[in-house]
């Protein structure tokens, strides 16, 4: 928490002086400088407080409730600390975790979600890398236009774009219609509510998240390096593998994490397009919460997803911070 006496060390010379003032002789400093320091604290303090209240503390509550016991009441869980003759008595229950680890339903959908997210990430990478590469190599005017085409779907309703695939993939949908007319199949193929439609939906929704960081990386590469590699006799493929690919690893990492992390807990796409016999973990969380009203188990599921995602999220922050600190980010349509 940024406290009120946070030492502020601005990098530039004139401000470093003010900061010295502030630390050593705040009492002697004029009211103008004091106001200046207070303003700086507010700038960082207000958003930090907001996020602490609405982002950090909620996770602690989820953690707390995952260790409580469901009961028929409003809210439907027993408080962790009961008061007995004026003394606090902790009531920590592991029942929700016991349920999660003993019922194979949970474990199976947990593993299924990881697999779906991983495969979707690989497909996004395979599709997104050449796309980002082609945009980065296009001429100036084309580049802006192509980037806009990539970003545009991102601004339109996610839900409606997923919904569009129902119309394309259902048995009397457009794709089956085309297949039948071409004579490739004689009966409609079941495409909806399969792994296939699930992957289509996820890749479709998250592809821009893969392309944009890859583009931001590839666009900065110095073409002279490739020319040098060619002059030294490297074939295009070798040059790509030994020069371009290693340089683009940060972009690959950022894009993959941006797809993988939200895909694990995806709820809307599997509900609309996915299988009915194998549901993903995000759906389990929602069903436990809304249909079974089992808040402790729902919280336990949330904690297990978070445990899985903690490492990727920390990795993503490292990659992004390095990119943001290393070079000025040009405004890619933003």
């Amino acid at each position: 928490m940024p406290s009120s006496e946070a030492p502020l060390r601005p990098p530039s010379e004139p401000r470093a002086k003010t900061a010295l003032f502030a630390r050593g002789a705040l009492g002697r400093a004029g009211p103008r400088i004091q106001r200046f320091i207070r303003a700086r604290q507010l700038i960082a303090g207000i958003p930090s407080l907001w996020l602490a209240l609405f982002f950090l503390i909620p996770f602690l509550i989820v953690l707390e409730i995952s260790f409580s016991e469901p009961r028929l009441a409003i809210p439907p869980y027993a408080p962790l600390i009961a008061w007995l003759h004026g003394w606090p008595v902790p009531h920590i229950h592991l029942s929700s975790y016991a349920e999660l680890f003993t019922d194979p339903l949970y474990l199976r959908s947990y593993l299924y979600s990881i697999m779906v997210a991983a495969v979707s990430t690989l497909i996004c990478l395979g599709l997104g890398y050449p796309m980002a590469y082609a945009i980065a190599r296009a001429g100036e005017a084309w580049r802006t236009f192509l980037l806009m085409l990539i970003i545009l779907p991102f601004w339109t309703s996610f839900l409606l774009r997923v919904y569009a695939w129902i119309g394309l993939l259902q048995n009397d949908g457009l794709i089956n219609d085309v297949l039948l007319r071409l004579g490739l199949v004689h009966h409609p193929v079941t495409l909806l509510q399969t792994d296939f439609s699930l992957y289509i939906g996820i890749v479709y929704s998250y592809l821009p998240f893969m392309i944009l960081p890859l583009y931001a990386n590839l666009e900065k590469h110095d073409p002279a390096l490739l020319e040098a590699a060619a002059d030294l006799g490297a074939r295009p493929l070798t040059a790509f593998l030994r020069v371009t690919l290693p340089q683009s690893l940060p972009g690959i990492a950022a894009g993959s994490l941006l797809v993988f992390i939200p895909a694990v807990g995806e709820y809307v796409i599997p509900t609309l397009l996915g299988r009915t016999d194998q549901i993903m973990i995000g759906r389990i969380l929602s069903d436990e919460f809304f249909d079974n009203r089992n808040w402790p188990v729902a919280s336990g599921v949330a904690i297990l997803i978070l445990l899985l995602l903690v490492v990727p999220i920390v990795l993503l922050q490292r990659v992004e911070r390095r990119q943001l600190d290393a070079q000025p980010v040009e405004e890619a349509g933003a």
Partner: protein
Amino acid sequence: MRAKGVFSRTVLVLGLVFLYVPILSMIVYSFNNSRLVTVWDGAHSPTLKWYGVLLSDGEVLDAAWLSVRVALCAATVSTILGTLAGTALARLGPFRGRSLLIGMTTAPIVMPEVISGLSLLLLFVALEQAIGWPRGMGALTITLAHISFCMAYVTVVIQSRLAGFDESLEEAAQDLGARPAKVFWRITLPLILPAVLAGWLLAFTLSWDDLVISQFVAGPGSSTLPMVIFSKVRLGVSPDVNALATLMVSVVASGVVVATVWMRHRQKRRERDMQLAAAANL
């Protein structure tokens, strides 16, 4: 080199087709007379029938109105908070709590929505028990939840915009005797104005579009537009949703095109001004 260029360009074209065919199919079928989405009723199409159905659906209109109000509020507050956070991260140098602020502004962007939704609802329930506020779930709780995840996006937009400028202009103003507040209003804010606007629009879109988090914190009485759409499409395809999609896509598309053109125009003008200034100095 040639072969690879051809390969990546082919994938680019196919990928764009993949991205746009579903959107185009919704637009085309929104003018179809038939209730069956896939049967093109050539005799009676194109028709605006489904637009009429949509615009006389009270449930949809109520939900859209709620979504607009929530999105306006959420976008405005989150833009203010996100601009503060982005400025703090890009301009204040190291301060205590900086890494925490970075973590709290990047994590919400990737956090699976079911987790954000659940945790926010549990917070509201706990708050209501402890201090009696907020009273029940509704527009207020949806707005608070939206502000929290939208401001993370705004922060990133502002921060990367500020990272693209060095501080020399602000320092020059300071050296000439401008107070920090004046520096912010006269130098920093005009510089990041396009990013502030982009952040506001992004926040508005995200709030307008959010389904999962709203579903958790909405309570029984209030439904946002995505919630109504979701309950409609869970039952199968309905043509009036195509009409709605077409309306939304056209609004968004024209907005983004106008914004992009305007921003490029500003950018060009700024570059020209700077060139002129440089030339004048010579």
